C-alpha cells in the first residue's frame, strides 16, 4: 500500500467518516465561516480524502483554520461530517509528523488579561499533540 493510501485509510479511521457518502452539493463550503481563509475548501477536503490525495491535504493551511463549529456537520444532507475529516487530518499531522501549529514559547505574547483559560486549553488541544 502506498503511503498516501495508508494515510487516507488512517484519516477515514480516525474520523469515522466515509467520504464516499458525499454527493458533492457543496453545502459544507456554503456554510463554512472560515471558508475565505482556507486554501483547500471543505467540500474539496472530502474529495481529497476520497481520492487519497493526502500530501496536499496535510500541507494545507485549512487544517488550522477550521473552527470546529460543526456548521458543516449539522447542515450536510448526506451525514458526511467534513469537520471530522479535517480534524482527523490535523491529528495525522500532529501525531505522526510532529506538526505543531502552536509553540509553547509563542504563548506569552498571545496572552492578554481578559483571555479565558478555556481559549488556551482549546487551542492546545486542537493545535498540538
Amino acid at each position, binding site marked *: 500500500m502506498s503511503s498516501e493510501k495508508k494515510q487516507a485509510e488512517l484519516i477515514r479511521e480516525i474520523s469515522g467518516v466515509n467520504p464516499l457518502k458525499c454527493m458533492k*452539493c457543496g453545502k459544507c463550503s456554503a456554510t463554512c465561516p472560515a471558508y475565505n481563509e482556507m486554501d483547500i475548501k471543505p467540500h474539496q477536503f472530502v474529495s481529497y480524502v476520497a481520492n487519497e490525495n493526502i500530501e496536499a491535504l496535510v500541507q494545507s493551511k485549512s487544517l488550522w483554520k477550521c473552527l470546529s463549529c460543526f456548521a458543516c456537520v449539522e*447542515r450536510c444532507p448526506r451525514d458526511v461530517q467534513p469537520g471530522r475529516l479535517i480534524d482527523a487530518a490535523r491529528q495525522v499531522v500532529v501525531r505522526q509528523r510532529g506538526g505543531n501549529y502552536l509553540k509553547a514559547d509563542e504563548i506569552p505574547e498571545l496572552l492578554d488579561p481578559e483571555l479565558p483559560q478555556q481559549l488556551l486549553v482549546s487551542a492546545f488541544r486542537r493545535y498540538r499533540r
Partner: protein
Amino acid sequence: MQRIGVFVCHCGSNIAATVDVKKVAEMALLEPGVVHAEDYQYMCSEAGQEKIIEAIREKNLTGVVVCSCSPRMHETTFRKAAEKAGLNPYMVEIANIREHCSWIHKDMEEATKKAVILTRAAIAKVNLNTPLKPGESRVTKRALVIGGGIAGIQTALDIADAGYEVDIVEREPSIGGRMSQLDKTFPTLDCSACILTPKMVEASAHEKINIYTYSEVEKVSGFVGDFTVDIRKKARYVDMDKCTGCGVCQEKCPSKKAPSEFNRGLNTRSAIYTPFAQAIPNVPVIDTDSCIKFKTGKCGVCSKVCQAGAIDYTQKDEIVSQKYGAIVVATGFDTIKLDNYDEYAYSQSKDVITSLELERIMNAAGPTKGHLERFSDGKAPKEMVFIQCVGSRCADDRGKPYCSKICCMYTAKHAMLIRDKYPDVNVTVFYIDVRTPGKNFDEFYRRAVEQYGVNYIKGQVGKVIPQPNGKLLVQGSDLLDNRQILKEADMVVLATAIEPNEGVRKIATMLTASIDTNNFLTEAHAKLRPVESPTAGIFLSGVCQGPKDIPETVAQAGAAAVKAIGLLAKDKLLTNPCTAQSDELLCNGCSTCANVCPYGAISYEDKEVNDHGIRETRRIAVVNSALCQGCGACTVTCPSGAMDLQGFSNRQILAEVDAICR
C-alpha cells in the same frame, strides 16, 4: 410415491454464471421420487415451458420442481404450464436459486451447494404435495378510488368509461387535488386549471361516477372482488341537495380569519367556504373550528342569508357502507414541513416561501391575484433566488432520501415565467444537479437558461440570512468557480421535498397494502407490475406510489384503471386453495382457532364422527374456504394439531426444514 421432474433454469447467465446448473440437476436425480432432471437456458420461455409439458406427459410426472427465479416472479407461469400438461398446478414448487442464491453469492462452489440444498427442500416439499382445487368467489362490479386529485379523477373516468360504477372518496371539500393549486404546467406552460377543470366537470357529470367529497375511508374488510368499505361523510352543515352554490353565505360570513388551506395559508378564508371558485361540488362546508355559531352559539348569518335554506347546523357525520370489487389508491402528496431546515429561514422570514406557495402567488386567482410580491412588505422583488433539493436526497432523518423528481422542472418553469412576465427581475437557481429526464424536458430547461437568462449556479446554499433592511442574504457555494457566494435577494423560493399525504399509512393498514419506509405504497413488482399492490384487488395511481409529474401520473392512473377493469370484467375469481382445514378426528372443538382468525372464517358444527370405530357427535371446527385467506394463524394456535394449512402443511414445512438441515 411421487414421480418428480426437476427443471433447472440458467436464466441466461443470471443463474448459470454462479451456479453449476448441470450439477444441480445431477444431484436432484439422487433425491427420492425424482425421475427426471434437466437444465435449460430459459425455463420461462415458450420452449422451456414446452420441455416441462413434454416431460410431464412422457414420464407421467406427478410433481414438478423448477429451480429458477423467485416464485413471486414465475410460479404462476410454471403452474399454468403444468396445468396444460394435465397436472394439477399445485403440484409445482419453485426453488428460488436466483434472488436467494446466484445473485447474492460470488463463489461458484458455495452457490452451487446452496442451490442443491434449496432444490432438495423443494423436492422434499413436492413429495408431500397434494392436488388442490381453487374455489370461486364473486366480483362486485364497482370500484372505489381513494383520492380525487388528477390521478383519482383520471382513474375514475377510465373505469367509468368502460362501463363500471366508480366512487371517488376525497378528503377535502372539493375534488381537484394538488393540480388545482398549480398555475402553469411544464413543459408546455399551459394553464393547469384549463386542463384540469374540464376533467373535474366530466367526472362529476359522469353517470357512472359518484363523488364523496369531504369524506374519508373509515374501514375496509373483505378481499379482492368483494371488499366492504365504510366511508365517513363528514358533516358539511350544508345540504348538498338544496345548496345552489350562489356564494352569498361566504360573502356574508363574519368570520374571515381562518388560514386558507388552498392558498397554503398565504391568505384567509371565511368559516363557511369552498376551497376555490371552480370547486366541485360547488357546495361550501362550515369549518367548525372558526365558525362563530359553533364556537359561541350566536351568529347564524349564513343560515339567514341562504335563500335556499341549505344551512343545517344539526348535520351529523354519516357512515356509508358500500361493496367494491377493486380499490384504487390515489392519495397523492404534500410538501414536507420545513422545521428541520431552518437554516433557510423559512420560519423566520415571510419572503422565504415554498414552490407550492409560489404557485399560488403566480396564480391569477391566488392571494396576490397573480402579482409577484413580497409577503413582508408587498413590494415587487428584483432579485429572486431558488434553492433546489430542500429536504430531498437527504441521508439522515431530517429529510427524505429520494429525489422528489418534479422540482428541477417546476423551478425552470417558475424561473421562465418570472423572467417572461417581469424581465427586470433577476433569477438565480442554486442546484446540485439538474435532472430533466422526460420528453422535451431538457430542451425546456435549456430555454430557461439560454433564452430567458436564468442564472444557474452549481452548489447548495448553506444559510439564508435575513437582513435588518428586509433583504435576504443568501450564502451559497459556487462549485464551478470554487467560491463562496453572498447574494442579496428579495425573495427566496425553496424547492421543498414532497412526501406521501398524511394518513396514507392508515389507509395502507386498512387495505393491508404494503408501504415502504418513506410511506410510498409498494408496487407488486418494480418493473412488471408497477400499478398493482401486492395485495390482490388494490391498485396504485399517482404519487402515492412514488414521485411523479402530471403526465406520468395520468399515464399511471390509466394503467391502474385498466388493471381494475380487468378485474371487474371477470364474473368470478378463483380463490387461493391454500386454505386451512381441520382434521375432524383430532379437533376437540376448543374455539382457540376461531379466536385468532382475522376473517371469521371458522365456525363450529356438531358432527358425527367415526373415531376408530367409536361413533359420536362432536363439536368440530369448520373452515369456510371462501373466507379463509390462508395465513395459518389457526394452525399454530391449535392445541391438538387438528388444523393444518393446505399447500403449507406441517409435514411439508418440516420436510423442508429437514432437507435444509441435512
